[in-house]
């Protein structure tokens, strides 16, 4: 399943870091952060609950970029 979330991040490098962090979160198949449109597209692994996974993703992203925000 694929879902798109609105995000808030200020610098392009931080967006790259967020993408990296999201990809490494378990339950995430692939993640693309689009800095320009401020969107994160996440593809979840089969049978994963997106809400639960996204909580982890947010936690991981906050770790690399304390200023970022993901609208869940």
């Amino acid at each position, binding site marked *: 399943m694929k879902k798109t979330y609105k995000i808030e991040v200020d610098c*392009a490098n931080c967006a790259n870091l967020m993408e990296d962090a999201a990809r490494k979160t378990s339950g995430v198949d692939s993640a693309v952060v689009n800095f320009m449109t401020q969107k994160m597209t996440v593809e979840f692994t089969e049978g994963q609950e997106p809400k639960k996974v996204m909580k982890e993703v947010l936690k991981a992203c906050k770790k690399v970029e304390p*200023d970022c925000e993901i609208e869940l």
Partner: protein
Amino acid sequence: MNKKQKRMLARIIIAAVMLVILNFIPVSGFLRLFFYLADYLIIGYDILKKAGKGIMNRRVFDENFLMSVATVGAFALAIYSGSGDYNEAIAVMLFYQIGELFQSYAVGRSRKNISALMDIRPDYANIEQDGRLIKVDPDEVSIGSIIIVQPGEKVPLDGIIIEGSSSLNTSALTGESLPRDAKTGDEIISGCINMTGVLKIRTSKEFGESTVSKILELVENSSSRKSKSEDFISKFARAYTPAVCYGALALAFLPPLVQMIMGSTAQWSVWIYRALTFLVISCPCALVISIPLSFFAGIGGASKEGILIKGSNYLETLSQAKCVVFDKTGTLTQGVFEVIGVHHNELENAQILEYAALAECASSHPISKSLQKAYGREIDHSRVNDIEEIGGYGITAQVDGKSIAAGNSKLMKKLGITYYECHSAGTIVHIAIDGEYAGHILISDIVKPHSKAAVAELKKAGVEKTVMLTGDTKRVAEQVAETLGIDEVYSELLPAGKVSKVEELLSAKNEKSKLAFVGDGINDAPVLTRADIGIAMGAMGSDAAIEAADVVLMDDDPMQISKAIKISRKCIRIVYENISFALVIKFACLALGAVGIANMWYAIFADVGVMIIAILNAIRALRVRDL
């Protein structure tokens, strides 16, 4: 500016004013340090905090860390050496923050610019209920509903006009500024703006499937597909930041240690200062921000001109297109066929046309449509049975109990019917009734007015080879190719033959140059996917084409093809300019910093100055109107 940016601006102004005043107040000693430190914290507290958090989360080596180490280090050196010159540390932080603010402002502005260009999302649809108009969410309107669009409103859903006439502004979709007329019975696509009359429309698609949704989806997802240059930059940044940190560390400690071993005095403060300069220069922001911004601006500028590019990777490929392959019908020619004449017939012309039109009544092929148009009367489907369409050959059917075969010479050969060749150039539909040859109909397609100029423009834009593929006869194909100045032409191809021809061309060219295929999306979706880059023309309303192509031209003017290529070239040139400019300045300053020629002020230019120049250059990609 948003709230965050305004607060930042206030901090920058306060810190800058304070810095100037402090330079005129004759305080010294501890009090002086206190004031300067206060100023430093005003401008840089958030950076220090982020750097601290980064270390706690075991993620050192980001730009906050670089800046914190550099400025704290500069402060410490000033205290240690007793010079009392704290200006440098504060200035570095100040300019870094100015750069960050400028970056976020510029990005926000161009984002807004581009979304304004693509402001085609309809907010509501009008539905009539009990004689009153009510506004509903377009998502809730089901297929077959009647919606009403008033002058000045956006058409929210695709459909057919059942009442009213008006002119439509399609500029948001096509970049074409001339209004288009629409009347009862016409198909209408969402995203146009109704300009003059009230229109009643029966919807034919749900909102999610409507043209406007498809286009928005395409544009919004476009920069998610990253180009090689973007991938290169993010990989580069990942390796680069730790590398310069270790480089700075080595620069701070190795030379003094060597000096110590050699027996001379170790110049610790000199080398640490150089290492700090090194850190400031090394910040990768200019690269990391300007490359995606260039692509974003390029794609945004192109969509303003009615050229939708599905991703930065496609923009990159398009810029390398050296060979352009066209489908003839609907791309270079209008695809509007007209019956020119009926030859070699014993029956009346009208009779032949009637049989042909009836036999082809189920086909949506442009040729069939032209036959139906020439027939000119309502088609009575009950007179036709057993229609069989043989792709690339023609049609056989039972009309009024007679077996009719209508198609090209291959069909006649297949059925073993002797036929007469036509001596004029055009598409020939041979007609056989009950196995007897009954004559042929000559149909001709009209070349689009700009086709010739478009082919010439492509050559000027650096395309080396133009090729035309068509299912049409050799004679017609060669005539068209000659008038348009096309280099190579392959005719009488079946749809599958086009794919294998493109594959042949793909394997014949060298790796670096790319092949673009331009088609109108009807019957050529497989070729669009197979080519390095597929360009679909006049795709308003054709879902298959939007899906299969990498670049969608909203207008069916062939001039748009060369424009798309020029836009992509401009954008890629800007990307390379930025990459090389940033890298050259950075490495030059790094080298100068290491040997002590560049001081902290050079470093600030190398960081913030380069970034601002790169961003301004990137925004240039948005301006594509005059290409």
